[in-house]
């Protein structure tokens, strides 16, 4: 009578029961990868240098205005590189005062290249500040994209940082990938800028030089009849009156002609600035600029004290909705670039699932029949072990919340072929021991114990590969590594422990055993 038989039966029963528990109901517990349910996988690169430049540009503007506010005349303030601001004072006499003032007002910067006689100095962002800024840009980008995705409405999205400055976005079951991409990738930097109508934009567009303090932008207008796009040049002041940060809320509304527009509610502070700007500039044009494109440039009819602004333009309801989403979620700190994209349509995903089930079933039938024909009763035991192996494999995937991908299914199919290898090694060994004249029981004993060492060695090498594959791979390939590794681990339990148990139950109890079906 083999030892601890009931304990071993209990263990197998517990493992099987746990597996069924984790797996039930399978449709809910097994996570399908993007390649199976369709969806979009994006890797975005945040242009951190650009974000730093934008940030420094804004600081440079503040340096100028705060110096002027202090009565210190400035000749030139400009950004140098990513994170330096060169200041040229109008007169060298004010240098000392300016220096101590700037050090106090802008603690994130240190003074470089002081030149008192020339009235020059350079503000340079401290290295620690640069590091923390870089981190916060990526975090901010992550947060903004998460907000946008949440408002867009995707079930179970995944948004993660990857490496230094990359953001991985996975959106399963997306119907319109292009719209999602546009929504996520838009910087959505909103600015309100006054139009400078003293300058003829056509002349600037055809090559005249721009006076300082203004810039040339374009408004895209689509002719509703011909669908032709026209680009209308507009000259605006560089300095923005308001930005996206001043927007508290955004909503889509319809005007009398059923044309959608986006209505903005400004923050209290933004509303105050807006009221002031509209008071001072009645009759002028105010350009609403998003990511460097002018959306519209309405004339300021009167003072607007309510803190309400509108973005009109020739967009569809869907475009207006997406615009609302990006304005509400806020701007990305810098432009993002799509580094990698994988989109799988839902029909291909369904196709892949069908193919996956077909191959799994096909491989299982082929291997099960082979084992049955070649090893008869022992083959049947190996087949039972295989079934248990697949059950454990799927349950472990459900338990670890692993994702089943198409290559992952391939891993399952391969596991079918590899799991019975262990049984083949054991059975061949038992046959060999029988041939050398051992009794059935002795042959089973030495067959299992001798083959075990080899089995461990062969398992380790496959695990080494799977581990490296996991380290290296992305998405689907990682799924393959995971199933391969779990399948290999499970086969130690099923092909060795479980098979041995069944052998013990059949051959190791009661009276003498004369023959074995192997």
């Amino acid at each position: 009578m083999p030892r601890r038989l009931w304990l071993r039966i209990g263990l197998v029963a517990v493992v099987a029961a746990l597996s069924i528990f984790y797996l039930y109901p399978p449709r809910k517990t097994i996570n399908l990868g993007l390649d199976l349910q369709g969806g979009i996988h994006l890797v975005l690169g945040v242009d951190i240098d650009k974000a730093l430049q934008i940030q420094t540009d804004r600081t440079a503007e503040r340096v100028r205005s705060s110096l002027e506010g202090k009565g210190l005349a400035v000749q030139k303030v400009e950004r140098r590189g990513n994170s330096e601001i060169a200041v040229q004072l109008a007169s060298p006499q004010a240098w000392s005062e300016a220096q101590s003032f700037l050090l106090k007002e802008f603690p994130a910067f240190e003074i470089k290249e002081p030149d008192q006689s020339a009235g020059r100095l350079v503000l340079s962002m401290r290295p620690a500040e640069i590091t923390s800024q870089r981190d916060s840009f990526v975090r901010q980008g992550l947060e903004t994209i998460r907000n946008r995705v949440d408002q867009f409405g995707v079930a179970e999205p995944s948004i993660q940082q990857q490496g230094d400055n990359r953001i991985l976005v996975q959106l399963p079951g997306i119907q319109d990938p292009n719209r999602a991409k546009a929504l996520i990738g838009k910087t959505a930097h909103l600015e309100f800028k006054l139009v400078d109508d003293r300058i003829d934009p056509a002349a600037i567009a055809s090559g005249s030089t721009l006076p300082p303090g203004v810039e040339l932008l374009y408004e895209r207008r689509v002719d509703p009849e011909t669908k032709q796009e026209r680009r209308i040049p507009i000259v605006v002041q560089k300095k923005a009156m308001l930005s996206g940060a001043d927007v508290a809320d955004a909503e889509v509304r319809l005007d009398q002609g059923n044309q959608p527009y986006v209505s903005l509610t400004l923050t209290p502070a933004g509303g105050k600035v807006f009221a002031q700007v509209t008071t001072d500039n009645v009759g002028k044009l105010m350009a609403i600029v998003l990511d460097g494109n002018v959306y519209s440039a309405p004339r300021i009819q009167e003072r607007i004290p309510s803190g309400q602004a509108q973005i009109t333009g020739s967009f569809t309801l869907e475009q207006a909705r997406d615009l609302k989403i990006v304005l509400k979620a806020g701007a990305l700190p810098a432009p993002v670039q799509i580094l990698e994209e994988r989109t799988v349509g839902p029909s291909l995903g369904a196709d892949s699932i069908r193919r996956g089930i077909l191959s799994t079933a096909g491989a299982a039938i082929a291997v099960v029949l082979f084992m049955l024909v070649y090893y008869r009763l022992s083959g049947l035991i190996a087949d039972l072990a295989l079934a248990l192996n697949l059950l454990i494999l799927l349950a472990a995937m459900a338990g670890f919340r692993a994702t089943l991908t198409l290559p992952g299914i391939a891993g399952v199919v391969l596991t079918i072929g590899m799991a019975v290898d262990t049984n083949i090694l054991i059975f061949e060994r038992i046959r060999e021991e029988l041939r050398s004249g051992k009794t059935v029981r002795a042959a089973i004993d030495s067959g299992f114990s001798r083959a075990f060492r080899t089995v461990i060695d062969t398992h380790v090498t496959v695990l080494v590969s799977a581990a490296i594959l996991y380290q290296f791979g992305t998405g689907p390939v990682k799924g393959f590594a995971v199933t391969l590794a779990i399948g290999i681990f499970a086969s130690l339990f099923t092909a060795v422990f479980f098979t041995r148990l069944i052998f013990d139950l059949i051959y190791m109890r009661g009276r003498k055993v004369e023959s074995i079906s192997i």
Partner: protein
Amino acid sequence: MLQIFVNAKYDFVGKRRWFYVVSGGFVVLSLISILFRGGLNYGIDFTGGTLIQVRYDKPVTVDVVRRGLDQIKLGQAVIQQFGDAQEYLIRLHQAGESSEALSKQVVDALSRASGSQVEIRRLEFVGPQVGRDLQLQALYAVLAGMAGILIYVAFRFHFRDGVISVAAIGHDVIVTLGALSVTHREISLPVLAALLTIVGYSINDTIVVFDRIRETRAKGIRKGQNWGDLVNLALNQTLSRTVLTSFTVFLSALVLLLFGGEVLHDFSFALLVGVVTGTYSSVAAATLVMDWESWSRARSRASGKLHARA
């Protein structure tokens, strides 16, 4: 009882020169094919570019797809039928940028040229930087896999066995790459996964043989038995195992190739080739033990002589 190779008595060691010629030949042919085609044919995962899988609602010819694409200037495009004549893969190797406009543009142009509905089933864009990163990482991954196995086998068995194992794996990887090259297949991420699986799996049969060599040797060498007899005995005793274990995995890979669909086609093909060459190479590699031993004995004799003279 169904049995194969019972009491097999093949003289593998005596015929080992043939193994070396055959293996050497395949490796050289593989390398020539790879060189001839200007290096390994990396897919967009590794080079960067765009891959679009489209499905028409009725069968069309490659020319129709080509005509559609010619309307929009996308640069060099590779068009490949994917499964039936309704489905095509379009590869754009230019390192452009991913754009929302691209897929719409492609659908419009293809529909216009064919007069049928076109659906984009899959779109993959890999930026040039990501691709280049991956290419290097892929090489590291395969090398790391081989190094891991060298260390493990050397530690568990013998330094000799570790080196021979890695030589066998290298052979399998090169021959598989050669087969991919000859059949004009691309190296994509799934194919790399197949290669790494081969690295881990094809060594299994070799390990079974090494294990048997060690076991037989531990029992003590009988009179008149040399390394050649030992290796031959181990190989013949384990031959049924070697073939049977590979056969079940071969079956699985074959089913994947036949039923797994186009997306897994290259992956299954690489696996199938790898399993076959892995089985062959594990027999061939074991005979190297013989040469290693006689070589190291000759060397120690030679150095012994030198010592004696000195």
